[in-house]
């Protein structure tokens, strides 16, 4: 009796969980949707198991036009101007080009439609939706692609810590002390004066250090961050109490040859290459990066360690500032009628459900992977499946890259996945994660195109100050006399915006 009740209970639980995992697709009639997207070079469309499975399940045949990734923007411009738009178009940025397309009425405004789709509403959070809001029309013109929440920190070379008889620094003073040792005590043992603490990519990429001074999310290309200063007031970055102290700290490190004197010449990924070449002791990174490094350095998981950001003077624990993670978005051409719009949106809705997510990012079971456990995000593949999945899938071709803030799998082998999960656990235990609001201001979107020279001049002045070519007064007078007046309008709008935002 009890057994029967139990099995009934189990069965109903399974049934219930099934219905929430399987999104409802009201309409599965066959239909073709044309798409413009970026796709890895290796992916093959004919005989693609994933696309076939999608067609079977949803009735949708995806006709993909995939220009080369490296010049996607050029092709996108031409396509948008050609008058011959595909139904679904990927945009990687929500910049002035996006604003123009929205303004010129090329793509649907989605505000009135999206509420009808439960998965779109639950997996894509409100701040993520806000990223896709065009200030030119005030409406949302794309479905953002949700991405994994970032955990930023610093990766350290453990061998060097041992050689120099040190422990991983956790605050600014310890960092300085360790830096001095690295610069003077030749940890790589080659007799040359060529080792440094780290080699930043510009001055505003190493958030593990910056977060000890000012609130600063990594993808910040904008002028304002949406987080208050230590006194609770909202300010632009240059007015924050930690702005000058950060630059002064970097200047001190530079003058004592603790950071790489060539840092400003770094192109994207040079900092990582220098770290792997054993030229620097640390590098900016995120959780899961070390597992990736094993491609380049086979024993990466043994000799490198992922650490939390530095703790600032007035902080009690390390802080991770996160911007709502969005990896581009999907625009829908105005040429499709409302019925097709509904089909497309329900397709995207399905991709944001567990079933659709797994199918579009992990592929078909048996062909692209062996087994998958959604709760622990453990994806197991045989070697053969690894090869097939490269032909079937591409991260660029996913419609949702994360479900509930987590990717389908942090890595590709069980030991790496375990390694990544450990990193994440250790990180979450000590780091406080703060979400940065998405800021959508009209004056702020057009500001960089109105003042391009000022943006690069500020960058130049900051680097010159850190490098020691100019003094603090020179930098301050530039900021006070040129930068702040130019940004005054944005500042005002920002403060007003944040005050209403807080009130909500």
């Amino acid at each position, binding site marked *: 009796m009890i057994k029967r009740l139990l099995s009934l209970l189990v069965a109903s639980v399974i049934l219930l969980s099934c219905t929430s995992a399987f999104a409802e697709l009201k309409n599965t009639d066959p239909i073709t949707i044309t798409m413009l997207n970026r796709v890895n070079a290796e992916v093959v469309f004919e005989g693609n198991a994933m696309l076939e499975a999608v067609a079977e399940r949803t009735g949708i045949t995806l006709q993909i036009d995939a220009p080369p990734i490296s010049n996607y923007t050029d092709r996108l411009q031409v396509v948008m101007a050609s008058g011959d738009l595909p139904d679904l178009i990927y945009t990687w940025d929500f910049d002035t080009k996006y604003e123009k397309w929205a303004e010129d009425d090329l793509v649907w405004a989605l505000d009135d439609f999206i509420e009808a789709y439960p998965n779109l509403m639950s997996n894509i959070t409100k701040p993520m939706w806000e990223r896709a809001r065009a200030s030119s029309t005030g409406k949302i013109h794309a479905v953002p692609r949700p991405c994994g929440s970032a955990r930023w920190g610093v990766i350290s070379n453990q061998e060097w810590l041992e050689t120099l008889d040190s422990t991983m620094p956790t605050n600014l003073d310890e960092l300085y002390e360790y830096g001095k040792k690295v610069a003077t005590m030749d940890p790589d043992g080659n007799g040359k004066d060529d080792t440094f603490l780290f080699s930043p990519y510009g001055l505003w990429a190493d958030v593990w250090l910056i977060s000890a001074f000012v609130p600063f999310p990594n993808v910040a290309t904008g002028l304002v961050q949406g987080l208050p200063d230590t006194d609770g007031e909202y300010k632009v970055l240059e007015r924050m109490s930690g702005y000058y102290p950060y630059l002064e700290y970097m200047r001190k490190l530079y003058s004592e040859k603790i950071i790489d004197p060539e840092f*400003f*010449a770094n192109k994207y990924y040079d900092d990582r290459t220098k770290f792997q070449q054993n030229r620097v002791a640390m590098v900016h990174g995120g959780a899961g990066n070390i597992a990736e490094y094993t491609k380049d350095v086979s024993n990466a998981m043994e000799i490198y360690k992922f650490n939390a950001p530095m703790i600032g003077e007035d902080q009690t624990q390390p802080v991770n500032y996160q911007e709502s993670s969005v990896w581009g978005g999907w625009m829908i051409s105005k040429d499709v009628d409302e019925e097709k719009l509904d089909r497309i949106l329900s397709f995207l809705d399905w991709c944001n459900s567990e079933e659709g997510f797994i199918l579009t990012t992990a592929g078909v079971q048996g062909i692209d992977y062996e087994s998958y456990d959604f709760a622990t995000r453990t994806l197991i593949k045989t070697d053969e499946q690894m090869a097939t999945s490269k032909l079937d899938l591409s991260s660029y071709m996913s419609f949702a890259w994360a479900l509930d803030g987590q990717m389908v799998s942090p890595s590709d082998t069980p030991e790496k996945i375990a390694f990544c999960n450990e990193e994440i656990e250790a990180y979450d235990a000590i780091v406080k994660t703060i979400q940065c609001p998405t800021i959508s201001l009209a004056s702020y979107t057009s500001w960089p195109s109105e003042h391009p020279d000022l943006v690069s001049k500020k960058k130049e002045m900051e680097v010159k100050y850190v490098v020691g070519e100019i003094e603090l007064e020179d930098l301050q007078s530039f900021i006070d006399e040129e930068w702040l007046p130019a940004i005054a309008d944005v500042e005002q709008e920002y403060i007003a915006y944040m005050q209403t935002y807080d009130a909500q």
Partner: protein
Amino acid sequence: MREPRSFLAVQRTKCQRFLRYVLRHKYLYLLLVPCVVYFIVFHYVPMYGVLISFKDFNFKKGILGSEWVGFENFEYMFGLSDFYRVFWNSLYLNILRLLIAFPIPVILALMINEINNRYFKRITQTAIYFPYFISWAVIGGILVNFLSPTWGVVNEMIKSLGFESIFFLGEAKYFRGVAVASSIWKEAGWGTIIYLAAITGIGPELYEAATVDGASRLQRLVHITLPCIKTTVVLTFILRVGSIMSNGFEQIFTLQNTMNLSVSEVFETYTYRVGMLGGRFSFATTVGLFTSVISMIFLLTANFLSKKLGEEGIW
């Protein structure tokens, strides 16, 4: 009363004369037809795109339907504070290239021509072409590594000689030297081809006569080879002046960084950066139109001067 008729008659005879001329040279005109058709179809038909610089481009309305804004885009461009510096950088760097890098392929071609050993000639000729085929992105990366003040080979040699390492790409004053020198290395070899082709056209009997007269090889070079390729050199020079505003995006982009930006920012990288920041849609076209006009003026001036000096021009 008689005038209108004779006017028409004059026109008719002009027409007839013209037609007779065309028929007499019919094959020449026939040969020219594909060329003219090509340029009209593929260059003049799309030429209206130049108008983008004068319009506020609207994607839905297209180029012709967009609103006319006159010189507004140009005013924006001239109003950018960095514009003049970028203009000067582009111009100065190219002038350096013209003065230093341009003569090198000519000299190299002359030298190769004087080499008698067939195998040596073949091998060196093939060797000097290699750098042309490796893209700037790769060469730039290798070069940045080589010139690194901490890890680069060049500085290791400098340090071993007792001097302090030089941060080549970190200081504005070395940038132009590095840019021009790397250009020479990459392009000089390939540039010799056109001059070697010109040299091949020189009749050997001229050399024979000079040898019999007792001329040394150097004398033969200066008095025979050089004058015979003069037209080609002048022509390539004029054409090169026609690209006086272009510096090649990839080369500059890979060698550029915040500290040398004041001399390394040229039009190509500037439009890229402004475009990246989300600049105006027509900015690149506006800059392109401006640089085209300047380049054309330079070319026409060079052409005019060369004709005044008695040389052949493009016309």
